């Protein structure tokens, strides 16, 4: 075999390998970005997904009603949260149902009280989403209007008070309060736009209505408590490095409106929470098994939160099993 034939063979092999990887790489990018819009959400080219995430969260401070940040004084707040979730397509690639349920292990060491821990379910959620519009996943070409079209996925869902609400707490420190104590219905849209073959922006916005509920009053009877409405937004930049690796950085914000008690608005009760984070994902068995590592933080900076009792930093690891068509 001559040197020229060897070189031709090598070039041909490289081309064949590149061609064989091109479709999976594009599919990986597509699924990574569309699947990153929520925990348990099924990526575009998958049929179903199961995910488990273990997160450790540590409180570092709080934001008061004016938005001032203060470090925690004489208090230690640690949470470990195991979230189980997943989703499945409903007979068609466009529709999927998905959900998650957290199991919370909480620890509180508050001044003057005995340190205490408790474990219990958090608030579970379930959603339905529809892939209304699809991105070509080619990246933006200024000469081709079709390449500006993003993935657009409207969704609706509910969050159920499967966790113990604060008013149901039986412990002095409230360590066993693992949920909001109210039903929430939400609707929103996830928009994913590939800027290039490897880079995508993911914007998820939603509006939620938290249903009123009764809370017990100390002197007997009940108070009608309305936790108002919430608006959530999350912007992520996703980079798909190669067939196996991807990473993202994100910012999220949650606003809730003033609450009302027995029909009376409670002043200065609205909340705001701005959070930043980053994640790194790796397919260990493409396209079925994926591992992830992420970190996020409530910045200890005035104005980045309001009425947030426990601002925190967290790290999480994720394992996800995807199922293909």
């Amino acid at each position, binding site marked *: 075999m001559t040197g020229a034939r060897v070189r031709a063979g090598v070039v041909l092999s490289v081309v064949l390998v590149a061609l064989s990887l091109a479709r999976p790489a594009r599919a990986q990018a597509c699924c990574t970005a569309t699947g990153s819009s929520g925990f348990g959400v099924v990526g575009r080219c998958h049929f179903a997904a199961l995910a488990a995430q273990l997160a450790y969260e540590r409180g570092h401070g*709080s934001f*008061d*009603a*004016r*938005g001032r940040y*203060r470090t*925690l*004084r*004489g*208090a230690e707040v640690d949470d470990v949260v195991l979230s189980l979730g997943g989703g499945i397509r409903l007979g068609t690639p466009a529709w999927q149902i998905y959900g998650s349920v957290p199991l919370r292990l909480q620890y*509180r060491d*508050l*001044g*003057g*009280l005995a340190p205490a821990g408790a474990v219990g379910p958090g608030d579970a959620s379930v959603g339905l989403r529809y892939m209304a519009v699809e991105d070509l996943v080619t990246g933006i070409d200024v000469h081709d209007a079709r390449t500006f079209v993003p993935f657009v996925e409207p969704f609706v869902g509910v969050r159920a008070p499967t966790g113990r*609400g*604060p*008013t149901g*707490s*039986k*412990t*002095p*420190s*409230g360590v066993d*309060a693992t949920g909001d*104590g109210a039903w929430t219905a939400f609707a929103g849209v996830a928009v994913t736009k590939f800027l290039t073959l490897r880079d995508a922006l993911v914007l998820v916005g939603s509006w939620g209505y938290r249903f009123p509920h009764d*809370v017990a*009053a*100390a*002197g007997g009877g009940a*108070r009608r*408590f309305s*936790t108002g409405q919430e608006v959530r*937004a999350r*912007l992520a*930049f996703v980079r798909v490095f190669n067939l196996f690796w991807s990473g993202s*950085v994100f*910012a*999220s*914000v949650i*606003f809730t409106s003033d*609450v009302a*008690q027995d029909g009376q608005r*409670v*002043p*200065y*009760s609205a*909340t*705001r929470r*701005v959070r*930043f984070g980053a994640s790194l994902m790796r397919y260990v068995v493409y396209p079925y098994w994926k591992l992830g590592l992420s970190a996020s933080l409530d910045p200890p900076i*005035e*104005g*980045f939160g309001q*009425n947030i*009792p*426990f601002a925190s930093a967290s790290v999480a690891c994720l394992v996800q099993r995807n199922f293909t068509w």
Partner: protein
Amino acid sequence: MVRTRMFAVVLAGFCAACSSNSALAGAGGWQSSKADLYRARFVPDPEPPATGQNALDITLEASDGKPVEGATIAIEPWMPAHGHGSSAVPVVQGVGGGSYHATELVYTMPGQWELRVDVSAGAGDDQFAVPLDVQ
């Protein structure tokens, strides 16, 4: 570089709603009950109040300024913005001269709390609402 700058601009937008509220009341001064039957002074211990176990000193007077002794006082800590209180039940004891000492005041988280203080004495039943900024 341009992409980085764009991302920074978007992130800054998230924080654009950062605003401050007008002043919130604090504890420590004299205040009148809702029906003006009593006046009282509430002094948290520690001051400022902190997450966890706390106490409270109360000085109670009738509307004419005379100390009120032997009153029955019940306190309910409440977090108005979150719609919950505390599972611990405060204990109030008279120490003489119109002064009372409350213990077992547990605040489970930092933030704006309110003490709902029910007073029952010779002049009748009345209530105080004492705002607290718990740190």
